[in-house]
């Protein structure tokens, strides 16, 4: 058993920032991560980091833009804290050596980005996330923070109190991928989950193959509710064969979208008469899918993004990396032909319910980054707001876990915050399959003393892994593919009641199938078959939460679009969707949105661009 | 390094077919360099006959020159020296950071020039012996 003050699970932007903050606060902190830190998906972010740095700009404006972008589902204390602290965090990064793009006078450059009233997006070429990730990893190395890399965390160890708010988290159980060893990480102060996104719940995503929603699912099963899971951002321009992102920059520079008949459909079909291709992500994504669904897609799958008219010189100057992406990942030369694009899952707004200090309702369990939901992005995230979120809330969680004195949080968490119970008709039972004696899907027995909690969790996981390795059964890849297909088919940018129900049925079937999974590779060394099999369980839990939330929310807000309900319904739906895992059965309930912050109060307005 | 077990062909020089221009240049430069040192030592050894007197020196050298094989060896030596010089110049440019993107082409150029110079010198070398 390993022991530290603070255990940070995940070493992407959020995890690294949390670890540095905890370390600076004097805590003995360790990072536990299934990938080497520099392999984290934060490295894929291209666009930039928003922060109000300019004298004419202000954090209030940034907060206002963020709230508007969130379609008023953001919580004001989170939004304010975020906008206020982002500038410090960005300058901090600069002091750590991040190679930002620069102005002639040597200052950090800022450029305009969708949904922002000021050019406040700082960036480092087209590889902002890469630089952010590496810069922070370098600081971790400098500080000598312990990193347990290629350790796959399978479970958070919490006490077995009936009420989740009475539970305490004492550590996590990890599986060392290289050796097959299962061991515990005892956290004296707290565990911070920073495991990133869950794109693998869909079969077409810009996310990495490692983004399987592990943190969300582990916290959920430990008793921390999932919040606003129905809000999933789809990016309108991803390459069809891999999901690799073609950044907004192409459309920003004047790239045009065409359907099969070579019509400029954003205008011709009136999807966005003012902004055209530059309309917000959800609008463009829906327009593309409508074209495809109505038979005007190319090969019934995608549309074309054309930038040839910009001229070779301009393309090489500003969009060179796009040429490489199209060439390397799609085999298409962007100078000669239009690039095929289609919408892909991109970002998960919802996640583990936490307050502005990153605390979940379970004592000692924190979450930060994409796996958490503060809620900052509400119903829709603005481009360039995720990276600063990693910094601001990663740092706050780290500090708090290390014992820093911080104000009382304004955002409530846990079932106590419930304002009304949820009510939704489901086609099938959600949650675990009745036959829970199966160790692969089981959740462990009752534990009384905190000391025994971790030991007990380790034992449960050993048994689970043993069983998976020894028995005979089906390959998890089939189950995962089934979930991914139904999610992409039925829970994408178009949401119709019938489809959502179909998705829930398919997910149910997948759960049943999962009862029979086994790992055919008997090896104890680097058994990725085993890792993927365990991840698939997390994918199922996350997918179910998304579909369930989507079925429950009967309105059109931000990224969530329902065919039957074509408008935002503030009188009824200005509230967060929460799902609590009660002994394996998800329970739906709601809590109000907090529109009153420390300094500002927000009025929901119409969101038009 | 792979000490765990023998990866056979993966680690061995049996992979030479997969070497790139820069590697060949390196290998050839090494090879020619070693020959040149070897020659330097032999050369001084042969010349040392001078200490044994004038005639000994002259006969030794002339005796050697009469052997056809020596003539051929001299051609080889020329080729070796020319390549080492040309590639050496290439390496000096690389050290100065000049023309790095043309490093493979400059290597091929050294090879071609070496061949040309060597061929051109054959008549001179073989002149007396044939």
């Amino acid at each position, binding site marked *: 058993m390993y022991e530290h003050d603070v255990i940070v699970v995940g070493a992407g932007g959020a995890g690294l920032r949390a670890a540095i903050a905890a370390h600076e606060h004097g805590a003995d902190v360790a990072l536990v991560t299934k990938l*080497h830190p*520099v*392999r984290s998906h934060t*490295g*894929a972010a291209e666009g930039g980091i928003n922060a109000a740095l300019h004298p004419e700009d202000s954090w209030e404006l940034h907060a206002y833009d963020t709230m508007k972008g969130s379609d008023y589902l953001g919580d004001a204390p989170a939004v304010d804290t975020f906008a206020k602290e982002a500038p*410090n965090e960005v*300058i901090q990064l600069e*002091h750590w*050596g991040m*190679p930002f793009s*620069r102005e002639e006078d*040597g*200052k950090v450059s800022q450029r305009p980005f969708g949904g922002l009233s000021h050019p406040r997006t700082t960036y480092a070429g087209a*590889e902002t*996330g*890469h630089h952010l990730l590496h810069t922070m990893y*370098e600081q971790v190395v*400098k500080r000598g923070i312990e990193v347990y890399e290629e350790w796959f965390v399978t479970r958070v160890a919490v006490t077995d109190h009936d009420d989740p708010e009475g539970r305490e988290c004492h550590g996590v159980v990890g599986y060392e991928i*290289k050796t097959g060893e299962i061991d515990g990480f005892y956290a004296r102060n707290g565990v911070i989950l920073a495991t990133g996104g869950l794109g693998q719940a869909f079969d077409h995503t810009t996310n*990495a*193959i490692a983004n399987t929603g592990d943190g969300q699912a582990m916290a959920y099963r430990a008793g921390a509710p999932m919040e606003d899971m129905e809000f999933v951002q789809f990016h309108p321009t991803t390459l069809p064969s*891999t999901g690799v992102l073609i950044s907004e920059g192409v459309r920003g520079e004047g790239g045009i979208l065409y359907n099969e008949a070579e019509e400029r459909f954003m205008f011709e079909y009136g999807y966005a008469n003012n902004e055209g291709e530059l309309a917000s992500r959800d609008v463009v994504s829906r327009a593309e899918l409508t074209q495809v669904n109505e038979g005007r897609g190319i090969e019934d799958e995608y549309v074309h993004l054309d930038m040839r008219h910009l001229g070779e010189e301009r393309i090489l100057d500003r969009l060179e990396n796009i040429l490489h992406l199209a060439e390397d*990942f799609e085999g298409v030369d962007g100078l000669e032909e239009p690039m095929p694009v289609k919408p892909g899952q991109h970002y998960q707004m919802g996640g583990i319910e936490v307050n502005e200090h990153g605390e979940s309702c379970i004592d000692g369990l924190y979450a930060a980054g994409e796996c958490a939901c503060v809620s900052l992005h509400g119903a829709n995230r603005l481009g360039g707001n995720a990276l600063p979120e990693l910094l601001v809330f990663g740092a706050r969680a780290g500090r708090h876990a290390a014992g820093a004195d911080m104000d009382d949080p304004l955002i409530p968490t846990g079932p106590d915050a419930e304002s009304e119970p*949820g*009510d*939704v008709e*489901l*086609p*099938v039972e959600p949650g675990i399959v009745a036959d829970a004696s199966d160790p692969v899907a089981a959740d462990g027995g009752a534990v009384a003393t905190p000391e025994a909690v971790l030991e007990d969790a380790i034992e449960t996981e050993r048994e689970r892994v043993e069983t998976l390795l020894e*028995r*005979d*059964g*089906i390959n998890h890849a*089939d189950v995962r593919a089934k979930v991914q297909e139904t999610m992409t088919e039925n829970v994408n940018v178009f949401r119709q009641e019938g489809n959502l129900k179909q998705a829930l*049925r398919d997910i149910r079937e997948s759960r049943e199938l999962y*009862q029979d999974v*086994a*790992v055919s*590779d008997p090896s104890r*060394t*680097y058994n990725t*078959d085993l890792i993927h099999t365990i991840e698939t369980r997390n994918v199922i839990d996350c997918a179910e939460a998304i579909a369930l939330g989507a079925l429950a929310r009967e309105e059109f807000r931000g990224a969530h679009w329902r065919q039957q309900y074509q408008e935002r319904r503030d009188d009824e739906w200005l509230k967060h969707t929460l799902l609590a895992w009660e002994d394996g059965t*998800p329970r739906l309930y709601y809590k109000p949105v907090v529109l009153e912050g420390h300094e500002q109060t927000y009025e929901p307005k119409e969101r038009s661009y | *390094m792979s000490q*765990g*077990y023998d990866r056979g062909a*993966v*680690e061995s020089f049996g*992979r030479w077919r997969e070497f*790139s221009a*820069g*590697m060949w*240049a*390196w290998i050839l430069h090494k090879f020619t360099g070693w020959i040149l040192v070897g020659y330097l030592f032999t050369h001084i050894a042969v010349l040392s006959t001078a200490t044994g007197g004038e005639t000994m020196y002259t006969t030794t050298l002339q005796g050697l020159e009469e052997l056809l094989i020596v003539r051929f060896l001299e051609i080889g030596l020329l080729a070796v020296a020319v390549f080492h010089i040309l590639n050496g110049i290439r*390496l000096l440019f*690389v*050290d100065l*950071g000049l023309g*790095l993107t043309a490093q*493979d082409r400059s290597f091929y150029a050294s090879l071609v020039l070496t061949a040309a110079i060597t061929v051109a010198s054959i008549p001179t070398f073989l002149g007396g012996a044939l």
Partner: protein
Amino acid sequence: MSTQIEEQPETEEETEPETEPETQSPGERRREKKRQRAEAREQEVEDALDEAEEAVELKVFRYAPEVADKEEPRFDSFTVPYHKGMTVLDALIYARDVYDSSLTFRHSCRQAVCGSDALFVNGRQRLGCKTQMGDLEWPVRIEPLPHQDVVKDLVVDMEHFYEQMHAVEPYFDPDETPDGELEEQRQSPENREKIKLSTRCIWCGACMSSCNIAAGDNQYLGPAAINKAYRFAMDEREGTDRKQERLRIVEQEHGVWRCQTQFSCTEVCPKDIPLTEHIQELKREAIKSNLKFW
């Protein structure tokens, strides 16, 4: 109970009649399902192969240290349906998910930023996700990176590579930072341009694996680590004292002088970093700063 189940689940079409006897044990049921799935999949594979215009053969290096009869390194063949745009990584994933789930390799981002999947493909270090199958000679031979310990199949031990990276003190360490809270350090666009390419490294290890010198001298820092040192030594924000220290690190015995300008590192780097150029520049910098002391 908040989530209620619909009165009439429309599952008629779904519920297949239970043909198996009730007495079947869970284990038997699992095995039965496995068999059914396997059959279904075989059919799918055949269909896929029929449908695809072409099929490509992969020859993949296999080795599993503690599994009986897999301890001997060998090559396995997989036939994979080819489609335009398919990458080496796609092909490997297909082979794993369809034929042999124990086929092991690292991968994550699929977009050449995480550096997990540097492999030895047709005799050259390449990123699997960034290599189009259509650009290769078929059959395609895939092996783990040479000159590194193989952990299993295509997975190599990266520990040594990381150690070398860490040995050059790979972190920004300025002599001083501005006092003002929101005051950034100035850096000229030219200086940023100078270090730009060097900051692109994704730690994939392809360069190190391709270098004959690194293969022969285990202590050689290697091109990636030297490039990392370059990234900081050339950054004007760090100050001259730190630069001297950085030069001292790279001019140690197993540092820049080991490089024999073989250029293979530069050729294989998936991020097109001019490694040899950076190494050579550091050699000159070191000489320059040493000339005073001679």
